[in-house]
């Protein structure tokens, strides 16, 4: 079997295996698996409203996934998507609240602000990696917590007076659209999905088609050889982190300008950043893969909300399934071995 086919089969198998183990868990613990999956399906696609909500959920997941995937492809592990997202969220809302601008332009400025904020936040680990060879994983983890506290502080003390959240953004800055809401029976679907899809295209084009992308990939694979070949390794490391951070920041704008319309104090992380790792991984760090994986996880997450009510199954089950899928993709060597065995038997 060709590698290409395998690369497609592996994630599919991982999803199937994840669901399978989820089913076994339900059977063992005495839940009605069929009812659970029915509820899951209904909660994701049973009504147009839910489908709208799924796409809304998918939007930041795509961007977070892109962020992780982009870093991966250029040899970095951006585990700081969460922090960059929060920072981007705040920046977008800040612009949305503080500025008076015509519609569309206001939105655009706010979206750009989020990207810039995420990029700046990611610039720090990029710089430290490039100049001091500090591993980006640890710095980004630390910066996640820093982002959490700093944005909380800004929301409390700068953007509001000791309130737990900012004002609503101005109408002119919103990504929401009554057209899309009407289309999906009042879901919170917003124009962000278009931005996400454009971002997917940009990532693909940048990475695969441009000289810049060539350098980024080259530095990601082999810094020494890239240095020998005359590339500026430090600059490329920083750039790669910055671009990755910009995607993460945009994911924050989806929440700030689309889903919520404000920024609020957070006790913990949104989880979108970590889901981004899952999305990137399941999607094989490729553009189409990321979209499909985000769609799957978005549907699972939104659909899960319906499980306790309709089937009496705790929605944590879906978290388990997602974790298992990530696990199986990570251990895809196991699946590859299995496929090889099957296909060999088939030949003999």
């Amino acid at each position, binding site marked *: 079997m060709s590698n290409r086919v395998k690369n497609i089969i592996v994630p599919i198998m991982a999803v199937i295996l994840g669901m399978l183990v989820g089913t076994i868990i339900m059977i063992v613990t005495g839940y009605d698996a069929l009812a659970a999956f029915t509820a899951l399906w209904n909660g994701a696609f049973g009504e147009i409203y839910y489908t709208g909500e799924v796409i809304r959920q998918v939007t930041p997941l795509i961007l977070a996934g892109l962020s992780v995937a982009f870093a991966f492809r250029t040899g970095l592990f951006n585990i700081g998507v969460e922090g960059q997202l929060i920072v981007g969220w705040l920046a977008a809302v800040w612009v949305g609240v503080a500025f008076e601008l015509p519609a569309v332009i206001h939105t655009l400025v706010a979206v750009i602000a989020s990207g810039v904020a995420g990029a700046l936040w990611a610039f720090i680990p990029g710089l430290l990696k490039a100049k001091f060879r500090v591993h980006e994983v640890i710095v980004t983890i630390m910066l996640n917590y820093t982002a959490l506290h700093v944005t909380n502080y800004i929301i409390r003390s700068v953007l509001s007076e000791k309130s737990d959240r900012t004002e609503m953004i101005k109408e002119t800055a919103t990504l929401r659209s009554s057209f899309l809401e009407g289309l999906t029976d009042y879901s919170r679907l917003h124009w962000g999905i278009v931005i996400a899809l454009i971002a997917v295209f940009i990532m693909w084009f940048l990475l695969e*088609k*441009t*000289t*810049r*992308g*060539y*350098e980024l*990939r*080259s530095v990601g*694979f*082999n810094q*020494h*050889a*890239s*240095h*020998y*070949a*005359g*590339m*500026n390794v430090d600059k490329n490391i920083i750039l790669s982190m910055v671009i990755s951070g910009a995607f993460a920041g945009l994911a924050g704008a989806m929440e700030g300008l689309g889903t919520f319309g404000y920024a609020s104090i957070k006790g913990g992380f949104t989880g979108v950043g970590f889901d981004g790792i899952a999305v990137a991984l399941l999607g094989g760090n490729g553009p189409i893969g990321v979209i499909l994986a985000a769609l799957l996880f978005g549907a699972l997450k939104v659909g899960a909300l319906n499980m306790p009510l309709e089937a009496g199954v705790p929605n944590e089950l879906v978290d388990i399934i997602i974790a298992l899928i990530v696990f199986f993709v990570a251990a895809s060597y196991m699946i590859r071995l299995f496929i090889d065995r099957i296909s060999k038997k088939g030949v003999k």
Partner: protein
Amino acid sequence: MEYVIEMLGIRKEFPGIVANDNITLQLKQGEIHALLGENGAGKSTLMNVLFGLYQPEQGEIRVRGKAVKITNPNIANDLGIGMVHQHFMLVDKFTVTENIILGKETKSGLKIDLKKAEQEVREISERYGLAVDPQAKIADISVGMQQRVEILKTLYRGAEILIFDEPTAVLTPQEIKELIQIMKTLIKEGKSIILITHKLKEIMEVCDRCTVIRKGVGIGTVNVSETNPNELASLMVGREVTFKTEKADAKPAQSVLEINGLIVKDSRGLTAVNSLNLDVKAGEILGIAGVDGNGQTELIEAISGLRKSESGSIQLNGKEIRNLPPRKITEAGTGHIPQDRHKHGLVLDFPIGENMVLQTYYKTPFSKTGVLNFKQIYQKAKSLIQEFDVRTPSEFTLARALSGGNQQKAIIGREVDRNPDLLIAAQPTRGLDVGAIEFIHKRLIEQRDNGKAVLLLSFELDEILNVSDRIAVIYEGEIVAIVNPKETTEQELGLLMAGSKQKEVGEQTNV
């Protein structure tokens, strides 16, 4: 009982390749037995089978006449088989002693008894004349000493049969001499040795018998005393090989590279290149001879912009290039075949095609306004692959999947194709077989004949003597002599490299 080891009809397959096909090797008690073959012929594989790292699909191994199954290195150790691997198996951060006792530690209570272990190491090293410092960290000692540690590892485990896999490829001539002495001592102590090497001269010097394999198939075993290098070479390659590189006389023209008073520090901040002067002319190959660690690496890094130099000047075609960024230097007209092809020469995870434009991707026709033109890139790659005989399934194959020799050919193709005024070749044939070496030497000479300057760095005196038009001997960061290869001998070079007072080499003209 004549044979201590018998490997009979060994077959070992890797996915898609038969690395060993029905190979037989018999080792006599007390002999040094050479194993000869081209790159990828299957020598390392055969030895790894003997050492228990791989399991053969077919065949039988007998140790002192008894059939055995060697399923892991522990069993090999118990049978008295020890192996010095082609790539050193040493933990950099550990001390010499820790590396030697690893897996067979001397204990007192729960604790490792390092004192006792060091004592034991000292004893063995004295007995076999293997000078090492038991407390030194591997990272801090020379390659030669590292190899002695590898040998000690096997002796510490009581090995009677030692396998040396290309031990001399990484050594300086002096170290090679020492190693040969050590091997002779070992034989005297009753050990038996299998030696893998590409250097026929070494085989002729120390070996009793030689088994040749070609493309995984055993060709046969010959008594070294009854053969000569030419025969061995043709047995190995399957055709006649010429050793003396054919070349016309050089026609040196203007200086392409001029270095004056160059001072470069190494990573530890010590002066590695010390007020060095050198020039390389168009139409000549200048060879740099020297024992490893005398500033060669730093010199080359300084020329190519990979290391900042302290002072002095480096001029390329009369233009100052010192401390310019690597790209500027490349664009000024240099090409570089790096010492470590995996680390510096290739992006192993790129297709071979994309590797072919590593320095030129941003130029037309490979890209335009920042967008790559893959059609052009792969067309270029395809033609280079053909021209330089790079054996690869296609230009889309990952560079990682190519054998070392073919990776090297790809790099040379890439560098030569850019037609640089100065080509720097650092150990371009390290670890390659004679066929590949011959090919590469031809290409270097071709460059010279096209009126380019070639700077060749090599630790192989043969290579230096054969290929260079002039030889600069480097010692402690200075060029201590410039000699004409036609008028010098290996002995003389060796002495110069060892820092002996330069005798009247001043008379050698073109300084």
